[in-house]
């Protein structure tokens, strides 16, 4: 009855969000008196994958068939299902993402497993298997009893705070049987912003709204983000106006983020925007309007002109380095 963690690779290394899932899975395994096994699909090295042990995994199953080099929802779901069966796992853990959610859903159907998403903490096992999840786009939480033998948990960023050790995991090659039926969807092209920090993974986010007055002014937002090592984001009107791409739009109908620090410049803080950021640990609001509703949801606030404040903050960050 092991715990298996579905991880995603980025240039051969396990993604940060997936490492959080590994730690979550390992902590759950400890509670259940069992072990945590990682499934990694795609190209990587033994040395790289063994690092999953730093986060508590004892074993890594590495599926590295050439047909799996490009992520494929159906094929990955089949591989994960085979790994669950091979390892005798009862619980699957993964980090929420565009790939992870899709794979997890299919595996839930294959295994008739209960599936709960946006889980924010380790389960309570004192009376059944109960997880806490965020609902209403972060405006509330629910305690959910998972009743089936097989369970799938998709965790939200910051569900756990990983503690690393020097332990290494044993890496085993995993060769699942692949079915042609899983390769029906054809990937034609991928358009990805290069060299930027992935917004859902980012610990620090600098976001800006219509207060920036136009896309040509985004340099001061990017400068602060670069100085901090932060991802950039924007409000819905900014994405609707095409000042910034849709994948930067944070809010009720955009990306939901839960970074350690969310800096909002020139965003008034409509309830739909707050829904996308309300699980951030610390929120900083910079706005020239002292009545902006965002200040009510903020930890730190500055009433001032973003064109004056942002460059000064960038300087202060660089000076403190």
């Amino acid at each position, binding site marked *: 009855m092991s715990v298996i963690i579905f991880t995603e690779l980025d240039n051969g290394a396990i993604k940060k969000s997936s490492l959080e899932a590994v730690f979550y899975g390992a902590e759950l395994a400890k509670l259940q008196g069992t072990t945590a096994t990682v499934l990694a699909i795609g190209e990587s090295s033994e040395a790289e994958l063994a690092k999953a042990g730093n986060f508590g995994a004892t074993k890594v199953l590495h599926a590295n068939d050439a047909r799996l080099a490009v992520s494929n929802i159906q094929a990955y779901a089949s591989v994960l299902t085979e790994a669950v069966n091979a390892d005798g796992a009862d619980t699957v853990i993964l980090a929420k993402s565009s790939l992870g959610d899709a794979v997890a859903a299919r595996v839930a159907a294959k295994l008739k497993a209960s599936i709960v998403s946006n889980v924010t903490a380790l389960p309570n096992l004192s009376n059944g298997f109960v997880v806490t999840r965020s609902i209403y786009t972060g405006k509330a939480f629910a305690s959910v009893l998972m009743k089936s033998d097989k369970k799938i948990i998709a965790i939200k960023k910051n569900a756990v705070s990983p503690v690393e050790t020097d332990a290494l995991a044993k890496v085993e090659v995993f060769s699942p049987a692949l079915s042609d039926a899983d390769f029906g969807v054809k990937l034609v092209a991928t358009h990805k912003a290069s060299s930027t920090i992935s917004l859902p993974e980012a610990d620090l986010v600098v976001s800006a709204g219509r207060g920036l007055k136009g896309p040509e002014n985004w340099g001061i937002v990017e400068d602060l983000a670069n100085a901090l090592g932060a991802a950039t984001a924007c409000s819905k009107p900014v994405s609707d106006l095409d000042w910034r791409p849709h*994948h930067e739009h944070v809010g009720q109908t955009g990306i939901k983020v839960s970074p350690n620090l969310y800096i909002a410049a020139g965003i008034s803080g409509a309830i739909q925007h707050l829904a996308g950021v309300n699980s951030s640990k610390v929120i900083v609001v910079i706005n020239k309007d002292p009545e902006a509703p965002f200040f009510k949801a903020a930890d730190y606030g500055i009433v001032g002109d973003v064109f004056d404040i942002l460059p000064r903050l960038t300087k202060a960050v660089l000076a403190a380095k």
Partner: protein
Amino acid sequence: MKILVCVTSVPDTTAKISFTDGDTKFNKAGVTYITGPYDDYALSRAVELKEQHGGTVTVLNVGEADAEPVIRKCLAIGADDAIRVNCEATDSYFVATQIANIAAQEKYDLILMGRESIDFNSGVVHGLVAELLGIPSLSPVMKLDIEGSTAKITREIEGGKENLEASLPLVLGCQEPIAEWKIPNMRGIMTARTKPLKVIEPVGEGLTSTDKYELPAPKGACKMILAENAEELITLLKTEAKVL
């Protein structure tokens, strides 16, 4: 082309969220219900595809009787008929089972829904339905065109998007800007009243139960920093908030 659009009836995005009965039930008092915003995109694109290629659009809601105003609005926007599975939609697997059960009999070319419901935000029902039917699913879909029996799709991924092609039938979770939201006109509202709405009972049971709800701890007061001392923020983020 035969299209099924699954819709949710959810609290308006500005609704105040609260709970009753010792935090075991959502408090519906004073809450306005709307079609899930993502579902609205799915429905709008379905109506456009019907206009281009012919066929039918059926709306499906897994929910209680109080969802019917939302279903009628979908009919007013251009769906031909509707089905409501009479139950409370709380468990993803249970909801997906109801949809797959109907779809297995009706053989739709496309099953569209929002990328997620805005009440429970799971975003897994499309994947569950597709696997139960043994067909592909993709989400979140920003662009969808049909050429013959092939769907050309743009899907958002972290930090960008990808273009994909797949043969019908498909299950898709939709989001903006797949279509402009449609507003029902007077003729639509009149005809919606007489369009068929079939109510059926659910099959099977859920694999989870939600026992208790809670609201987040209230946020403490916002610490204001004078604009002339803006640089102090960086020090506070390091030493006090400890996030840098």
